[in-house]
């Protein structure tokens, strides 16, 4: 205990140096936390945008559907399975869809499109189709209208109130044909969806494709912070071997790769930051050891054992770095919280690029407490590792040489 007291007193023998070191560590912690929380926030936002634009977090299909996305690989809708899926911890919503392809025709124009049948009210809890309506209205349960992607409607020159004809192949080779009124136009983020997507109610799609009670997928949405892979395993366990369970990462591996690649780039920047912090702390330790060389020699001469002296200098470093990293964590909390509630908003061309893909042009921060703890701990560990240098100097200390002036 007295050693801790002495270490604390030693810290204040040169107040300016202690303040500078602590501030440097605190600053590094703030920057490190801010960089990491911004990165996590941007990725979370990206994932939320993607998940809420179409895929959901997890999809359940009949085994083989993902490789061959045809109606013959559809499955019978089971209310029981839906309920069981909904009961898995972390799952906030489950809905069913029937997806297929068809030709859409209006006047003299014909184009291939992707037709999906949804349960409008349940779909609202997962995707944001209802928020993407740029003209007309969202689907009501039991409605026989369709929603078209904006680009698709423009290419077909179809507007709200117009009629379009869908012709294609139905379940088990039957012919699918139907006439539908355009109820709304959606401005979707993904250019691919915008130019191809046609949405109708699930019963309407089942009727169109002669696929009574059939669906192609269950779409599952998870609560924030839920473990994707763990929940996916639970879903897989519940659904059984007849089904395939895919996470959004498996459905869209390119997005996952993009996130991983960005994360790698960001980690390089963070390592540079850590190196800068290390130099800052190390230079202080160097000065401290030079200044106290004589005193260290004297302490060993009068009978302080080297391990005790090593513990003393290590305690001094630990206290300094701990104060800095704690201060950094405390300072970061309001900054990160503010940026989470008032995200950095892009403007100009960058903002337009984001908006073109249906993403809100914002950079929010993540307030995940783990980020504060991990980044604070990393800076703390750097300090501890560097404090091994004074420990080494003490180990090599020769009291006679140290006390020579």
């Amino acid at each position, binding site marked *: 205990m007295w050693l801790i007291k002495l270490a604390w*007193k030693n810290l204040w023998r040169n107040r300016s140096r202690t303040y500078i070191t602590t501030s440097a560590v605190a600053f590094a912690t703030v920057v490190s936390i801010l960089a990491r929380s911004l990165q996590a926030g941007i990725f979370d936002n990206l994932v939320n945008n993607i998940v809420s634009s179409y895929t959901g977090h997890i999809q359940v299909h009949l085994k083989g559907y993902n490789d061959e996305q045809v109606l013959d690989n559809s499955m019978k809708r089971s209310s029981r399975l839906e309920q069981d899926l909904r009961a898995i911890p972390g799952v906030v919503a489950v809905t069913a869809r029937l997806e297929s392809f068809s030709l859409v025709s209006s006047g003299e124009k014909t184009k291939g499109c992707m037709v999906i049948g949804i349960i409008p009210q349940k779909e609202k809890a997962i995707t944001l189709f209802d928020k993407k309506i740029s003209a007309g209205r969202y689907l009501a349960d039991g409605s026989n209208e369709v929603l078209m992607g904006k680009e698709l409607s423009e290419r077909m020159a179809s507007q709200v109130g117009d009629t379009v004809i869908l012709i294609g192949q139905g379940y088990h080779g039957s012919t699918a044909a139907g006439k539908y009124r355009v109820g709304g136009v959606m401005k979707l983020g993904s250019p691919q969806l915008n130019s191809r997507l046609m949405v109708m109610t699930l019963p309407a799609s089942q009727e169109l494709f002669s696929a009574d009670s059939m669906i192609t997928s269950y779409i599952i949405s998870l609560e924030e912070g839920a473990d994707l892979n763990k929940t996916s395993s639970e879903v897989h366990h519940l659904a059984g071997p007849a089904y395939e369970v895919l996470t959004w990462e498996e459905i869209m591996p390119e997005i996952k790769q993009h996130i991983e690649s960005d994360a790698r780039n960001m980690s390089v920047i963070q390592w540079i930051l850590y190196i800068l912090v290390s130099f800052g702390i190390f230079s202080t330790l160097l000065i401290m050891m030079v200044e106290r060389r004589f005193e260290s020699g*004297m302490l060993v*001469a009068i*009978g*302080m*054992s080297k391990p005790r002296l090593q513990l003393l200098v290590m305690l001094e470093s630990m206290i300094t770095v701990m104060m800095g990293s704690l201060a950094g964590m405390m300072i970061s909390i309001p900054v990160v919280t503010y940026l989470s509630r008032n995200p950095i908003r892009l403007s100009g061309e960058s903002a337009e690029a984001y908006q073109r893909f249906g993403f809100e042009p914002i950079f929010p921060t993540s307030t995940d407490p783990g980020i504060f703890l991990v980044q604070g701990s990393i800076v703390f560990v750097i300090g501890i590792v560097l404090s091994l240098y004074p420990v080494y100097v003490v180990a090599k200390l020769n009291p006679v040489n140290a006390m020579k002036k």
Partner: protein
Amino acid sequence: MNQTVIDAHNISKVYNPKTIPVYAVNNVHLHLVKGEFTALVGPSGSGKTTLLNLIGGLDRPDSGNIFINGTDITSLSSSQLVKFRLKNIGFVFQSYNLIPVLTARENAEFIMLLQGMTKSERDARIEQLFRQVGLEGLDKRRPSGLSGGQQQRVAVARALATKPQFILADEPTANLDSKSASNLLDVMYKLNQEENMTFIFSTHDQRVIERAKRVITLVDGRIVSDTAEVNVTEAHKADG
């Protein structure tokens, strides 16, 4: 019979042994008994400090043995030497070397903490020591709030704190004005007289030399005179 405290046989310390050897201490024999008040004198570079470092276990001789209270300190490991110093040897340095962030009391107490003494033992010892060195009422002051003489008396209190076998003082009065030096010498002399504490000084200071009971003169690492031997010789002559 007087108890032997230091017994050094044929000790030598050579610097640059492979190039141009410089004998800092050259084949020195030294025998000190309890209660001596000894001054090591000699010109700069004569080997006074090196000899003190060797006797104090801070440095190792290249040859010879040093026995402190019967223990051959030249055979101890570095960590054993640190423990040995803590228990048996008190040090007073030229430039006081107090820990600036600690009060006078804490500086003296520091070495007792290293020894693991209890608070009540420490309190009793500190009170006694501060009375002995004349520092009553100054125990809460930091070194920066004390004069040079007062700081050196704190250093003496620290050196005495663990009741060592002897105290090694390297030029203890060198940085003091004459009044402070005289006061310090009074304190040390009194401790020597009343407590039979053994002191060995390296010094150039004539005042210290005059107060010393025994004066050993070193030149080029060799003892060229030792008043103890003179006294013994004179006693022999008187006997004869």
